[in-house]
C-alpha cells in the first residue's frame, strides 16, 4: 500500500467577531491508498473544516496537505480546480443535486468534465437506480438521491471520495445501504474514502478511525477487523 494523503502541521483559524477561533490546530495524519477512514468528533471539532481543506474547497493558514505527492496548499486557484476535477469526489449530507437536471444529467454534470469517466448507465445500474435515469431529484427518496450523489462523485473515478455525514439525513436501514454502496465503490475502484460522522456505529466498517476534538487529532486507531456495512449493528 502507498500513501495517498499526508496532512502535516495544518492550522486554520476563523476570525469570528474579533477574537480568532482556532478550528484546526497542528493536525497530522496520513492515509493509505484504498483505505476507508472514518472521522469522528463532537460538533464544532473541525471535521468539516479538515475535509474541506483536503478537498481543495477551503484554504488553511499553514501546514501542508500532500495528495498523491503534490502539496495542494501551494496550488493556485486554477490548479485547485483541476485538482478537484481530477482527484476528488464529494458526497454531502443533503445530497446537493441540481433539481432541474435528471438523475442521468446530474451524473453527467461531473462526467462531462472528466477525461475518462465510467459509463453512466452501468453506474446507475451499479448504484441500484436502474430505470430511474430520467427522473428528477424530487421524484426520488432521500436514499435514492444519495445514491445519485455517490454516482456523481464516483463517475470520474476520483482517488479521494470525501463524504460529510452521508447518512445524516437517512434512517438506519437506508444508511446501511448507502454505506454498503460506498464500500462497494471502494472495493471496485480502489477509491480512498473519508467519511465524517457522528454515528459511532459506522466505525465498524472503517479501516481506520480518527477522532478530532477542539481542532486536534485526539486519536488515530487502526481497525484490524472491519465489518461489512450490511453486517454492522445499530
Amino acid at each position, binding site marked *: 500500500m502507498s500513501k495517498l494523503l499526508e496532512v502535516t502541521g495544518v492550522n486554520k483559524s476563523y476570525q469570528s467577531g474579533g477574537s480568532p477561533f482556532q478550528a484546526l490546530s497542528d493536525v497530522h495524519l496520513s492515509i493509505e491508498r484504498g483505505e476507508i477512514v472514518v472521522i469522528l468528533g463532537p460538533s464544532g471539532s473541525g471535521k468539516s473544516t479538515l475535509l474541506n481543506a483536503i478537498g481543495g*474547497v477551503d484554504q488553511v493558514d499553514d501546514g501542508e496537505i500532500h495528495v498523491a505527492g503534490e502539496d495542494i496548499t501551494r496550488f493556485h486557484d486554477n490548479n485547485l480546480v483541476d485538482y478537484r476535477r481530477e482527484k476528488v469526489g464529494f458526497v454531502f449530507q443533503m445530497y*446537493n443535486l441540481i433539481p432541474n437536471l435528471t438523475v442521468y444529467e446530474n451524473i453527467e454534470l461531473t462526467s462531462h468534465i472528466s477525461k475518462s469517466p465510467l459509463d453512466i448507465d452501468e453506474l446507475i445500474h451499479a448504484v441500484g437506480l436502474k430505470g430511474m435515469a430520467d427522473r428528477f431529484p424530487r421524484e426520488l427518496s432521500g436514499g435514492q438521491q444519495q445514491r445519485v450523489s455517490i454516482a456523481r462523485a464516483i463517475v470520474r473515478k476520483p482517488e479521494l471520495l470525501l463524504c460529510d455525514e452521508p447518512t445524516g439525513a437517512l434512517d438506519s436501514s437506508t444508511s446501511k445501504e448507502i454505506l454498503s454502496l460506498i464500500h462497494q465503490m471502494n472495493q471496485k475502484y480502489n477509491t480512498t474514502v473519508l467519511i465524517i460522522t457522528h454515528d459511532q456505529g459506522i466505525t465498524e466498517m472503517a479501516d481506520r478511525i480518527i477522532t478530532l476534538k477542539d481542532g486536534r487529532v485526539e486519536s488515530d486507531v487502526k481497525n484490524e477487523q472491519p465489518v461489512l456495512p450490511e453486517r454492522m449493528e445499530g
Partner: protein
Amino acid sequence: MPLWKKLFRTIAEKKAQYFSAWLLVVISSALFYAFTAAGANLVDNLETFYQENNVEDARFFVQHPLKSPQQLEDRFHVQLEKQMSLDVSMDENTDLRLISNSEKINQYSVIEGEKLQTKDEILLDQGFAKAHALAVGEEMELKGKTFTVAGTMATPAYIYPLKSTSGFLKNPDAFGVAIVQEDILKKWENAHDYYTVRFQEDNRGAFKEAVTEQNQILNWVDKEDNNRITFIKGDITGIKKMGETLPIGILLITLVIISILLWRLMKKEYVQIGTLYALGYKKAEIIRHYLSYAAILAVTGSLAGTVIGWLLMHPLMASFAHFYNLPVLDTNPYFPYLIVSFLLPMVFFLPLTYLLVRRVLKIPPVTLMKGGTLKTKVNRIERLFKLRKLDFKKKFITRDILRNLPRSGFLAIGVLFASLLLLMGFITKDSMTYLVDENFENVYHYQYEYTFNQLQTGEPEHGQAAASAPFVVQDDEDQSLTITGLKPGNTAIQLESMTGEELDFDSVIMNKSLAEKLEISPGDSLEVTNQLSGETFSVTVDHIANSYLGDMIYMPLKKFNQLNGYPENSYTTVYSDQKLDIPQEKLAAKSEISDMVSGFEKMIEPLNYFIVAIALAAAVIAIIIMYILISLMIEENSYKISLMKVLGYHNREIHKLVIGYNRWFVILGFLLGIPVTFVSTSALLNSVTAEMNITIPVKIDWINILISFFVILGAYYVTVLLNKRQLKKISMQEAINRSTE
C-alpha cells in the same frame, strides 16, 4: 425602527442591483422632464414671439404695387405692410437677404447688440453672423456700401432661415437674413416688394379676391405653408413625443426589474416575514416595509432625475434656439410636468409592488416561517424534454433556458428597447439622407432655378421653361400643393414611377407624399383652387411618382396654362445648368441646387452628434438592464454555480453554461427591435411632419444596422465583464453548507 435599518442594509448588500434600478429611474425622470418641459417652454416662447413680434399670416407679391393698401386694411380689418427685400451676393456662394425694417408685421428682436439707429447699421441673423464670424461693431461691405453690424436679431418670418418658403434646408454658410432701414433698399433699384398681412377675421378669400380685382397675385404663401415659420413646430412635436414615450418605456422596464428584485428579496425573507408576524407586526407594517424599497428608489430617483432634467432642459433649449433663429428664451419650471416627473415613478411602482407584497402576505405565517413552499417544481415543459441523446452542454443549457425563460425573455425585451432607441437615431438620419439623395440626385437635374416676378412669353434664351403656382385642395382648404407645368421633353426634373420606370411629362403626375396624404391612386381626380387667381378646376392623376419632397403635381405646361387661364406659351420659371444673366429686378427668386446640398450636409451635421449621443444613451441603458438581469440570474443560480465550483468547474466553464446562452436572447432582442423600430419611427416621423409639407420615408442603411448590432453586442460583453466578479465571488461554502435545496 429596526425595519428601517434592515432596509438600508439590504440595499447596501445589493447596491449594484439597486443602484442600476435607481439609475434607470433617474434617466427616465430626467428625460421626461427635460423633454416635455423644454417642449412646453418652446411652444410658449414661440407663441409669445409670434404674438409680440406680430408674425405674418401670409405673404404675397403682386404684378403692380397695391394702389390703396389703407383702404384694404380698413375694409377687411387686416394689418397690411409693404416690405422690401434684396438678395446681395457676398461672394460666389453666399447670399445675404436684406429686408426692410418693418413697423407692423414681423418685427425683429435683438439678440445681441442694439436696435437699428442709423442707415449705416445692419442687424444679422444669429446663424449667419456666427458662420461668417461677424461680430457686433464690425464693418461689412455690401454693394459698395459699408455697414456696421449693430447686432444679431431674430424675426418671426425667418425663424428657420430658408431662402425659399418651400425649402427645407437652411445653410448659414450660403444664406442669411439681415435687417436694414427701408431707405437703403429704396435707393437700390432692384429691391423687390412684397406684402405681409395679418388677419383678424376669417376673410382671406375675400381679401384675395379684392386684391385680384385690379391686380394679379403672383405669389401667395400662407403662414401654415411657410417652412421658415412652421418647421420648428414639427421639431417641438418630436421633442415632446420623445419626452412622453421614451421615459414610459424605461419606467416599464424598471418596474419589471424592481418587481423581480422585491420578489426575490421577499422569497429569501419568508422566514423573517413569518417571524415578524409572530412577533406581532401588523400586515400593514410589513407591507409598508417592502413598499419602502420601491418608494425609496422612486422618490430619490425621480428627485435626482428631475433636477438633472432641469439642468438638461437649458442646453436643450439653447441648442434649439440656436438651430432655429429664436430670441433669448424664458424658461419656466412648468409645475405640472415637474410634479408628473416627480410622481410618475411612484405611480408606476407602488400599485404593482403593493399587489406583489399582498400576494406574499396571503401565505399563512406558519408556512412562511418554514420558508414557504420553497421547493422548486419541475414544470411540465421541462419534463417533456427527454434529452438523453443530446450533448451534455446543450442539454444543460436547454434546461436552464426553460427554467430561466422569464428572465431571458425579459432580457430580450430590454435589449429590444435599447435597440429601438439606437436604431431610431440611425433611421432618422438615413431617412433624411434618403429623402435628399432621392430628390437632389435623382429628381432635380438642373443647377439653377430662376423664378420671374412677371409672366414671360415665348422661349427662354437658355434653360427650360416651366411654370408653377400654389394651390389648395377644394374639399380640404388646409391641404396646399404646388402644381408645376413642364414641357413634355423636360429633362430638368426627372421622376420615376413607384415601380422604377421613368415618367414622361405628357401626363399628370402626383408625387408620393401628396398621394399618401390624399389617398389618391392613378385615375383619381381632385378639384384644386389656384391661390393666386382663385381659379378652380379638376385634374385627373395619371401616375404617382416616387418622390417625397413637397406636395407636388406635375403636368404639361400647355395644359397648366390652359387650365389656369394663362396665355399659351407663357412661363414663370426657368431651370438651367449654367448661371444665367437675368437682371435682378425681373426675378422673384433664384435658387441653386448646390446650396441646398451643402445646406443638407450642414443640417445633418448636428444629427451626427445626436446619433452618437443616442447610441451612448442606448448602450448605457442596455448595459444597465443587462447588468441587473444577469446579476439576478447569477444570484438565482448561485447554488448551482457554487456546486459546480465544488465539482471542479472553472469559472469560465460555469459562465458558458449558466450565463453564456443569454447572448442569443440579446441577439433575438436586437432582431425583434428592427421591425418594431420601423413601425414606431414611421409613427414618430408622421407626427413630426404632420405640420410640415414633407413626408419622410423610413429607410435604414444595413451598415447602420450592423453598427447598432455591434454596439448592443459590445454592451452585452461589457455587462459580462462587469458580472464576472460576481460569479467569481460566489463561494463554494454555499453549496457545501446548504442544508436543503
